[in-house]
């Protein structure tokens, strides 16, 4: 059975983590050592945050400005966000999100405790509502809760508006908060069972910091899951996909949402995001255990689901 460095998994976590291979302990990292290393790095980095530049799409911007720029992009796309997702991916994004939630299979198991799920950068609530519906309908779980955090208040307002039309309108199972994913100051340590981020992590200024924050807030045995655009793994399809992205999507943004620049940023940020293997490496560096490659490709790699477990 599973004995992860002396931390036994709870029964419901064993059932849920059927896809995690427990045989990879030769690669297991010692959590405390790596966490300390990362802490000291970030302290020295803080002094130079303003002078260091990061990428914003294909532009280089000072690190402390990127957060504001990303917030502005999503403020301007908030209302038409879903329409644009449908137009850009021909509706396939719904299939991806459904598969993501089905794979995670959230929900209290018989004899187990209700889950506390943290959905990061989940402003409009797509994933949150899907998870609550899955838990309620498949597992008859009326107690698991989702905390939706996002850096952008407009997206959260959209999400809150939508929640009022669902059965979760009373707010007892879903909560919306403005938080920075790299800090998550309102979320206590070791408090969440499941951390999800769907199509948000490529916008973060400091992805390793966000991964470390994810590691902090998850309970031992908690699962980190990320659904994100990634690199298409077949050459010709990659060419067609990139041509389509750069030539058509910004123009569609102009027509549908009157905002070409935000969609130009979106396709550039997709191109900038690390490949599946690199990102799996980053997840491991943050202290998560991954199984196999650590990711699953969707639609030839247009999107990918990365998962990890906090040991």
């Amino acid at each position, binding site marked *: 059975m599973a004995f992860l460095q002396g931390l036994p998994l709870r029964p419901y976590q064993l059932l849920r983590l059927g896809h995690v291979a427990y045989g990879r302990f030769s690669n297991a990292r010692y959590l405390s050592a790596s966490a300390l290393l990362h802490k000291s790095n970030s302290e020295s980095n803080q002094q130079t945050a303003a002078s260091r530049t990061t990428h914003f799409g294909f532009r280089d911007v000072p690190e402390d400005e990127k957060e504001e720029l990303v917030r502005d992009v999503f403020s301007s796309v908030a209302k038409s966000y879903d329409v644009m997702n449908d137009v850009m991916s021909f509706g396939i994004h719904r299939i991806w999100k459904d598969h993501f939630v089905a794979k995670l299979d959230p929900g209290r198991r018989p004899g187990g405790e209700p889950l506390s799920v943290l959905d990061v950068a989940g402003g409009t609530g797509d994933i949150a509502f899907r998870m609550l519906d899955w838990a309620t309908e498949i597992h008859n779980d009326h107690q698991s809760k989702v905390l939706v955090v996002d850096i952008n208040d407009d997206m959260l307002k959209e999400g809150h508006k939508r929640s009022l039309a669902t059965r979760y309108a009373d707010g007892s199972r879903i909560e919306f908060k403005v938080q920075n994913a790299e800090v998550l100051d309102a979320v206590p340590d070791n408090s969440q069972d499941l951390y999800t981020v769907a199509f948000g992590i490529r916008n973060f200024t400091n992805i390793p910091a966000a991964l470390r924050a994810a590691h902090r807030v998850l309970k031992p045995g908690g699962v980190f899951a990320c659904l994100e655009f990634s690199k298409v793994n077949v050459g010709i399809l990659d060419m067609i996909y990139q041509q389509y992205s750069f030539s058509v999507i*910004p123009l569609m943004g102009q027509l549908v949402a009157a905002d070409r620049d935000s969609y130009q940023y979106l396709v550039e940020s997709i191109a900038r995001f690390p490949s599946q293997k690199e990102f799996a490496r980053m997840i491991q560096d943050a202290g998560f255990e991954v199984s196999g490659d650590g990711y699953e490709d969707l639609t030839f790699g247009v999107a990918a689901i990365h998962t990890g477990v906090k040991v």
Partner: protein
Amino acid sequence: MRPRVPTNFSPCVRLLRRNYTYNAPIPNYPGHVPTNIFQKLFLAAGSGIYSFFDPTRGDLIATLGEATALPFLMERLRDRMLADPTGRRILRERPRITSSSLHIDQLLEYPENTIGRTYAEWLKREGVSPDTRAPVRYIDDEECAYVMQRYRECHDFYHAITGLPIIIEGEIALKMFEFANTAIPMTGIGAVLAPLRLKPKQRERLQTIYFPWAIKNGASAKPLINVYWEEILDRDVQKLREELGIEKPPDLRGLRKKRISRL
């Protein structure tokens, strides 16, 4: 280590092995978005259909104008500017009209019947400001992009000296006038397709009064693109009309009011 693909393989094989890197086209001027013919067609079709059903999207009308700006016709307009001394000066100095460059409140103090006063009064009456013109993005030639920008910014002046209001009928009549005067394709498209949205009485008014006026005056007038508006703000409007060869059309708002009061 993966063996390197020899570069004398055909591009097809190279694509199968290596990751494709999209090379963004280089812009010709700040704010330029280079587009190929297919993208222009896509933009033209999309913005045309969208703005037909939702005419409040002014940015789409601008996009339609830029996507349909055939290089031949824009260059012809630019050459007409080059043929005139004032036009040449405008192309050299590249003036831009914004609310900060014009000082609208000062213009309201100008004497009656000056261009500046007429323009400022028209702006006030219609409730618009000169800052509502979007920058040109999809025209590839840098100079033609400026010509289009200049046309867009002077559009309000054309409204002011013809007296046509901002309501859709007035805009259509002015578009026909501009088409006859500048030959920019979007003005023609707007003038021909937009009346389909009008009521029969409005269309009749356009057909009998305003279109004949627009075509006659637009074709025979001197090119309005060559007028250096910023320099002649204190000149008399009627003198300018006589110089350019434009007659003032009947007051559209007055005609509409009369008809409504008669009903």
